[in-house]
């Protein structure tokens, strides 16, 4: 019986740790969903921009020894800037209803950003400094890492901040108006291109925070994770229902928890396969995702 209890504690601890990472996944998923919600388009560069932002933050730490908050700020700003640049190069001048051309352009940009990172770092993983002291909270038989708790808090705060901007400011109103009916929004005097650009920068800021937070919690930064992270972000956005922010949060937590459960039972090499299977299960039984609307899926 006590063996079973020990196993139970270990499994729940693993899944709990997964939920912490899940909040970061949720941020990545939100980034995809936000832009899909605004433009009905997929921005494939999102995860690459987030990682590139984290690299810029790392450079700030390495070369001028910037303190932790400044590193995160610089990462967020750099990623936001990349987001804006991606909007201009891959979305701004492509006809608004040509979704696939914009998608292809952003895939091109994904490889472009990735290659630049690979070349400036020689492709080898870099150590990202742990920004916080190592603290461990004890909660009965469970242990919670202090830095993960901080990451969780920052992720929650940035999500709330994003929801505030979207639902309580004029900018958010404009974004939602453009996402619902771009022509009508334009007729109401909303500058569609400006609003979309701001959405990209906003999503980029969010990605930069997620990227640098994760990097400091994991301790390494490697260009090898760009594509897997992109795929994971897409899966989360789809499972949550493309365009739905609450859906992306729920799906991020779900995938984070499931991933660690698969890790525990099946090992690291097979883990990601099961996450992909999860996506196919959703595609077969619930193609609109957890919170997606049935209309405008295309």
């Amino acid at each position, binding site marked *: 019986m006590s063996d079973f209890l020990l196993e139970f504690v270990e499994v729940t601890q693993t899944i709990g740790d997964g939920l912490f990472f899940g909040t970061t996944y949720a941020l990545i998923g939100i980034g995809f969903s936000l832009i899909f919600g605004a433009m009905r388009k997929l921005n494939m560069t999102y995860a690459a921009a987030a990682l590139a932002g984290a690299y810029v933050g790392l450079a700030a730490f390495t070369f001028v020894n910037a303190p932790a908050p400044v590193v995160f700020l610089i990462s967020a700003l750099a990623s936001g800037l990349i987001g804006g640049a991606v909007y201009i190069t891959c979305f701004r001048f492509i006809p608004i209803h040509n*979704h696939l051309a914009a998608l292809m352009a952003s895939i*091109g940009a994904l490889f472009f950003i990735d290659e630049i990172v690979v070349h400036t770092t020689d492709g080898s993983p870099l150590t990202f400094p742990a920004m916080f002291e190592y603290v461990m909270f004890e909660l009965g038989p469970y242990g919670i890492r202090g830095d993960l708790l901080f990451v969780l808090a920052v992720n929650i705060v940035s999500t709330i901040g994003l929801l505030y901007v979207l639902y309580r400011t004029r900018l958010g109103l404009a974004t939602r108006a453009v996402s619902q009916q771009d022509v009508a929004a334009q007729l109401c005097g909303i500058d569609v291109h400006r609003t979309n650009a701001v959405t990209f920068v906003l999503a980029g800021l969010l990605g930069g925070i997620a990227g640098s937070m994760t990097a400091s919690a994991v301790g390494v930064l490697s260009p090898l994770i760009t594509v897997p992270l992109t795929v994971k972000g897409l899966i989360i*956005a789809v499972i949550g229902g493309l365009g739905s922010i609450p859906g992306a949060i729920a799906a991020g937590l779900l995938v984070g928890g499931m991933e660690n459960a698969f890790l525990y039972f099946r090992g690291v090499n097979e883990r990601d*396969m099961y996450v992909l299977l999860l996506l196919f299960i959703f595609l*077969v039984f619930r193609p609109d995702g957890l919170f997606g609307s049935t209309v405008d899926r295309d």
Partner: protein
Amino acid sequence: MSYYLGLAQLIGIHTLLGLSAYVLMLTGQLSLGQAGFFAIGAYSAGILTVIFELPILPALLAAAVIAAFFAFIVGFPALRVKGLMLVVATIAFGEFVRLFFFNLSWRVPRGDIEVGPDSTNGFREIRYFVANGWSPWEITTFVWTFVILVMIALWWMDRSRAGAVLRAVGEDELATQSVGVNLTAVKVTAMTAGGFIAGIGGALYAHTATYVDHLTFTVLLATFAVSYPILGGLSSVFGTLVAVIFIQGVLVEGLRFLGDWRNIVFGLLIIIAMNLKPDGLFDARTTRILRRAIGLGGREKSDA
């Protein structure tokens, strides 16, 4: 000389990869999972010639059928969604296949060594051509025989009723459905055909390269696969061939002096091409101008 023959083989194989995406794009579906079918073809053919010691031709056809079978199976759930969602689904499928081969270990003793796929170390012993003394010329002819067969088949199909149905689905699903065309059947057929063609390409790739591992079959390869028909346009199979020759022959080989930096150029090229010509480099208008320039004007299909 063997360098140019190697390049010719590569162009042939990439043409097959591009054509597998081309078939699906005729129906208006963009798949970023073609690298997955390519991988299934490559590993299946390798396993058949190495472990089961089959000759190349039955192994290649069996590999193509296996890849087509998986395309058929994946087609049903994946084609419930379309457009951008299909892109996500097919990326996920491609990654799933890659991870499957990343984990696959199937070693059998052969003499005093072990052969077969060895998970992360890749599949190293696909030496059918070397073992049977094929010259580079023979290998290149073999590869291009399949390329030409597939191109003729697709060109012929395009002129037939089947091609018209595929293009009709691509133009307007609702209208096509309302004249009694079964959309799912058409799309799954296109997916299966695409899987078959990618399977042939993969089988040829495995045997010309003699070595495959999971890192070959990434999203980058899938992006190459769709960028050929996108750049070459959908007006005919020759567009894809021209695009492959341009990207693999001119761009990748011509920019060899740039070293690793040429991958950056590929990314930039896609961005620029999509901004200038969102419907592909050889879209209806350019094709018309070109045809007029070479004296074929006025005769073309009314696909403008």
